[in-house]
């Protein structure tokens, strides 16, 4: 099973140009200037014969590829969660709603990053969810909590490597949604407690820490350099 969707590779810069013109014509009134992508550079990631991927954090594109890898993992996880035959049995209606919404958001993040990266994106990853019992509520929610907290800490820790203000801006738009997910999942596990936000300051983990934590769930090995 491939995590990635078979999206046609898009001419991202052309899309950016068209959208920019459309926005200008519409007299877009968003606060501040709408962020436009800087010129897309090729990825510096090295893909080995065994499928292993080495991301180069001196490249903004590969910091985005790092996010893309994590979003692929999250999207695949929630797609599996909501398509499991037991989904509507083990989760209450309000819990199903949260998990379906989170699934949708993660698929959006994955599809957006795939399209934005275009030909500079890393290959589709293969998930390994053999350790997760998708028919068990607690197994699903605890894994979800791990993924969401990890995602928040990954974006928080990777921001410092981005030199493009536009890319920093879009990463910032995604990370707070991951934090909203983390809060909701934690509340499903421990309702009405203080668990939704266990600290006044969230973690900002290094790529090495994040990739080590994600490694058991991904068949391909991913490493980071120039951090």
């Amino acid at each position: 099973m491939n995590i990635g969707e078979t999206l046609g590779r898009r001419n991202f810069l052309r899309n950016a140009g068209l959208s920019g013109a459309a926005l200008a014509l519409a007299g877009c009134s968003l606060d501040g200037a709408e962020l436009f992508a800087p010129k897309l550079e090729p990825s510096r990631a090295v893909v080995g014969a065994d499928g292993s991927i080495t991301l180069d954090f001196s490249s903004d594109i590969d910091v985005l590829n790092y996010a893309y890898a994590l979003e692929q993992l999250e999207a695949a996880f929630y797609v599996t969660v909501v398509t499991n035959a037991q989904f509507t049995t083990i989760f209450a209606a309000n819990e199903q709603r949260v998990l379906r919404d989170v699934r949708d958001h993660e698929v959006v993040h994955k599809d957006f990053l795939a399209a934005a990266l275009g030909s500079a994106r890393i290959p589709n990853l293969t998930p390994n969810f053999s350790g997760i019992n998708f028919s068990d509520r607690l197994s699903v929610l605890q894994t979800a909590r791990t993924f969401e907290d990890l995602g928040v800490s990954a974006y928080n820790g990777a921001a410092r490597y981005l030199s493009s203000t536009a890319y920093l801006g879009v990463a910032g738009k995604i990370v707070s949604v991951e934090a909203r997910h983390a809060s909701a999942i934690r509340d499903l596990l421990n309702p009405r407690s203080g668990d939704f936000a266990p600290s006044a300051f969230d973690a900002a983990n290094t790529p090495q820490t994040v990739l080590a934590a994600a490694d058991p769930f991904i068949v391909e090995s991913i490493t980071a350099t120039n951090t």
Partner: protein
Amino acid sequence: MSKQSDAVSALTVIDADVAAHLVSRRHAITKGVTTSGLVMAGLRIGTVPAALAALATDAYGQGRLPTVVSGVLNFALRLEYLEAEFYNLGVAAPNLIPQADRQIFTTIQAHENAHVQYLRDTLGTAARPKPVFDFTAGNGAGNGPFADVFTNYNTFKAVAQAFEDTGVRAYKGQAPALQPYKDVLQAALTIHSVEARHAAEIRRLRGNFADNEPNEGWITNADTDITGTAAVYAGEANTTQLGLNVTTVTSVSAKEVTEAFDEPLTMAAVLAIIDPFIV
């Protein structure tokens, strides 16, 4: 000393480079070299941002933070003062918060007070004083649109949601300005995501955690069910990211696309939103 070791090992996980600075500071301390008391304070508190605050003041000198940094942090401090005092008063108000929900609000209260402390530590003498607030949004008249904010739980929760969602958008809007100051940026981001956790919890609490739009944990379009808070959500219906219309590259509907991205607010927009709450 064990707490100092904890702080350093926590930093080793977070940022080896910063940890190296701290370790060298500790060596300097043991050698009797004069150093910032804030470094020690940060280590005692044992939290990464506290230690980063100490490093920032050590690196730049007390009261000599770059103008951009002190400007952004004082802006953040203004919001955190607002939030901290709001929850301090709300938690102390008799018969306002039901027992079942108290842990939610005491948790948020503690966090907002910690954020105030962190920002004040980092700013040092550059920290601006706490304003006088009017939580009815009456600019000091005390009879604004949220006049029953500390006696009506529904009003209190609505104002809390508006503050949290504003806080998320405010920090997000300042990230580009902090981009050259990577340690400060990172510390600010670790607050930014906590505000988002708060926002999600309060939004869901307002829907009693049920399947009850628009009280999910995320912002749908620019929708608000709270009269007078349109400016808090203005621009959240955006579906264009990096110049790309995201609805054209996914099968997920536009509604969920807007939920999948939180939008920033400019400093001016945020100050306009909170102005009625400041005397």
